[in-house]
């Protein structure tokens, strides 16, 4: 993936991010993309665990609606790698939903592009 001399995200390298993430590694990109929408699980976890202040803060921010992973990182000012790790852990623990129920079949590319085109025209004339 990443060759020698290439830049890699530092999520678990520095002491503080390491502590925040409890040393966990970056989650699989397929699970959490920049635009994965995240919200608090309505029921909460079945077996609540003690959350770190950072985990609690992410959970709080996610409690009033859906945000993308990127927006959560932007609002909390935590590095993206750290946010992904924490969100993955909170999801695993049952605190968050990162795969919200999709009420309809996912839209095909063409449908999405048509919708975007129409939306832009409607909004901006």
């Amino acid at each position: 993936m990443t060759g020698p001399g290439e830049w890699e995200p530092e999520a678990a390298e520095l002491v503080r991010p390491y502590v925040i993430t409890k040393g966990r590694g970056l989650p699989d990109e397929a699970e959490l993309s920049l635009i994965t929408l995240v919200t608090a699980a309505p029921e909460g976890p079945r077996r609540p665990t003690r959350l770190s202040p950072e985990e609690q803060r992410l959970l709080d921010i996610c409690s009033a609606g859906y945000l993308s992973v990127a927006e959560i990182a932007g609002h909390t000012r935590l590095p993206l790698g750290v946010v992904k790790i924490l969100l993955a852990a909170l999801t695993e623990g049952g605190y968050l939903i990162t795969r919200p129920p999709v009420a309809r079949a996912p839209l095909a590319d063409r449908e999405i592009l048509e919708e975007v085109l129409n939306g832009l025209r409607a909004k901006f004339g």
Partner: protein
Amino acid sequence: MAFAPNSVEPPHAVEPPHAVEPPHAVEPDTAGDPPAPHAGPGTSPRLGAQAYVRGGATQTAVKILVVGHFAVGKTTFIGTISEIEPLSTEETMTRAGEEIDDLKGVTGKTTTTVAMDFGRLTISDRVVLYLFGTPGQQRFVQMWEDMARGALGALVLVDPERLADSFQVIDLIEQYSLDYAIAVNHFDGAPLRDEAALREALDLLDDTPVVTCDARDEKSSAAALTTLVRYLLDRVR
């Protein structure tokens, strides 16, 4: 804001849960999103209702990249189109030391920070569009992969006075097989003098759209985005 290597406590250090500010008036979300089960005393979110994705439970999130060299107008463009105050996120990147640190005589790690800006536009109750902006820096592989994966396409902002600065960005976009349109960001507002010369300099395909755009102007920026999306649509039809 990423962590500086030496800072013990970053300035945005997370407050303990009991120290959070009083909650903003958060409107109950009426769009079918779940209620706020964890918003007990002292743990209320500090984001206003408009910060959240409307109808997030059923939205399909998509993204378009806004790329270009430094100071070409990416952040301005995203701010013009976005319905939220544009956000940014940074990643501290390291590179295993292949160079010897002259002063200390030890092999160290090089650390740098890369940022991306982004904004959001709710297109309808079915689609929410994110715009991600980043400069083209080849070696930030991870960030580029994060951004490019699943993107609908890219709008490449180009300064006609600094065409050579756009080569690297266009290379990257092509490397990730993203379809793109060129928005010539005209700082003086003058009409594009020679589109043919620009096409040749940038080695564009004949059907690659080229539009002029003032990133500070909503109509102009939206028109550039519309041109890109129409082009993307032509390509899937």
